[in-house]
């Protein structure tokens, strides 16, 4: 099992490995780093196909907030 985990981690880009290490270090202080052990729940951002709109589009359409104050009314 550990071999499989390691194999997945070695496939990550360098900066992501660094970020992952920082997260493990940070979360292990609170003893919740084990959430990172299940690498089958790891997903690359761009592989998401569900509602992958540009951030500006989302913000301007008020998708993420239902009561923001951008409207003229």
């Amino acid at each position, binding site marked *: *099992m*550990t071999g499989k*985990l*390691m194999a997945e*981690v070695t496939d*990550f*880009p*360098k*900066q*992501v*490995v*660094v*970020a*992952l*290490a*920082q*997260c*493990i*270090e*940070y*979360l*292990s*202080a*609170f*003893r*919740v*780093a*084990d*959430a*990172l*052990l*299940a*690498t*089958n*729940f*790891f*997903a*690359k*951002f*761009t592989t*998401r196909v569900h*509602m*992958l*709109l*540009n*951030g*500006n589009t*989302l*913000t*301007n359409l008020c998708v*993420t*907030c*239902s*009561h*923001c104050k*951008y409207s003229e009314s």
Partner: protein
Amino acid sequence: MSQGLCFISYFHILIVLRYVDDLDSADDMVANDTPLLMCLVEQLRGGMGADERVNIGMIAICPSTGDVVWDEFEGKCLIGYSSDAAENSSATSDGHMRTELEVSSFLSLLLSANFSFIYLSQTRMVHCKPAELLLAEQGLTKPTERMLKHFAGYAPWNLPVCKGLTLNRSTTTERRIRIERHKNVMSYTDAFDFVSKFYTQKTYSGRASTSFMLGLYSSPLIRLKGAET
């Protein structure tokens, strides 16, 4: 131990606020949202200015469900930050960016410095909706810092921050992303050592995750969500 308690109470309050306190306002509740931690690491890639090209590593973790989204992307400075960079950018991307600039007047007027980067990472930020950011104390470029500062101050999706842990309704207007700083960024080799140690030393059995996929796993959070519907 006290740190752990702090963290638990932090999440606990987030969860309590989300699931219990806001029963009267349906607009505030997003059922599939759980507090998320996002870590960003930046690496300079040279270019005309010091921070024209950067490589950004992103990882967003949901500690309560174990979902992780990661990405690595390149941020480029195209508009406004340095005139040389703008000249160097190709006509198509420039035109494209300018249209984008017009469309998103609210954000880009504030942050026109590094638009391509903002374009990329803002999309990621809006999608991932982090409740907490884990960043390096030093070493992030100025455009990044500016963008993150802006984003941390304005987070419409985020839960109200409780000042002094009081569950006062009057504090519910404040929505911010908490920013946590770590002292120094690990080098790749250090990070790899650390990660491999973590993944080889921990005795992990696949039971939890596979049972999760089979629908057998029920954390208190999921049970709460189930009770909601």
